[in-house]
């Protein structure tokens, strides 16, 4: 079963590498940010699988931190000055 989890984790890592293309080509800032958020979730899934595969419970805490702090970067992006939508508001 550990082998299986590790295999799924490898697969998810591969989808992340493919998804990097969206960050590279953009074109909008929002697109790139969305791609990174998707990586965040995929990363959490990988961490949970690795926690099972390596039998290390502290890895789950790292996953918890990732989900808890995922909002932070987007909030900084939306709340900071110089954003494009600001004028209409």
């Amino acid at each position: 079963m550990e082998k299986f989890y590790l295999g799924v984790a490898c697969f998810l890592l591969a989808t992340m590498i493919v998804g990097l293309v969206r960050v590279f080509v953009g074109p909008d800032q929002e697109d790139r940010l969305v791609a990174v958020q998707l990586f965040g979730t995929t990363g959490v899934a990988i961490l949970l699988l690795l926690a099972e595969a390596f039998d290390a419970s502290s890895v789950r805490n790292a996953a918890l931190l990732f989900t808890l702090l995922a909002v932070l970067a987007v909030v900084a992006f939306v709340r900071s000055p110089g954003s494009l939508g600001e004028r209409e508001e």
Partner: protein
Amino acid sequence: MNLTLLFDVFLIAALLLVSWRLLGASDLFQATVLFISFGLFLSLAWIRLQAPDIALAEAAVGAGLAGVLLLGTFKGLEPEEDREGENLSSEACRLDPISPCPGRAHLLLAFTFVGSMTALLLLAVLDLPAEGDGLTLLVFQSLDRSGVEHPVTAVLLNFRFYDTWLELGVLVAAALSILCVRNRLDLRELRPSKVPDVMLRRLVMGLTPIMILVVVYLLWLGDHAPGGAFQAGVVLAAMLILLWFSGHASITSLSRILWLFSLIAGFAMMLLAAVITASWPEMRPLEFAEEWSGAIILAIEVAATLSIGVVLSSLAILSLGAVED
């Protein structure tokens, strides 16, 4: 096919790809965003290399704080006349237009230098002895005298106490120098540059209790499992920044005395421990009595968490706060 090896290869490929594009891409926003995923891949690597303490810290720093700092600064630098353009060219937000552009000779020189340096590093690593325990055995032999059960915490707060102490000193110095850069005496009346909206306020209201719980949990974990003051402090900083962004009461509403007090709490606590142990008879400075060391370490950890959280959130708030002067 060995699955662990496959995982390693994928992970390293992703790390190198991300850092190459991070440094090479012409769009600065792309680099900023890639930096966040660089942190994510690094923390996967820490898990793979059995360093869960560092993965925890990297998760909080890389996913949370670094993203906030870089994205916020990027937004602050974005040239105003170019806002209508979809892609910012690298020329548009250049900061040093007076220095000449790097020519081909410059690049060649840099490449030669970096290439030879990397080769030298490679030789140095290949020269490392193939086997050896490092300090693992020594740490595990003295672990039951340290007052905690987790070896990394024991190293941080007992065996290499000086390092951690001076590190908190570095944090205080960083906070004070950023005050000089921003030409301020404290954080009061620094506001986020946009008026917070209801959705964000509700979200942060919901998240804050969970974050407080996580801070306490990480702190409690510290003495027997991966976790501790550093990780808890970073989460505390993230929480304070979120509160600030959403317009709730945060460290900006602290009085100057209270803010300074929490800024130096960790450093002062360690200084106090040093002074007390130094003036105690028949004990050397910073040598804790075995029956007390657990309690001393806990007290220091609580103070250090407070200080790390306050310093890191002050750094972010000071560099992101609206510029009114």
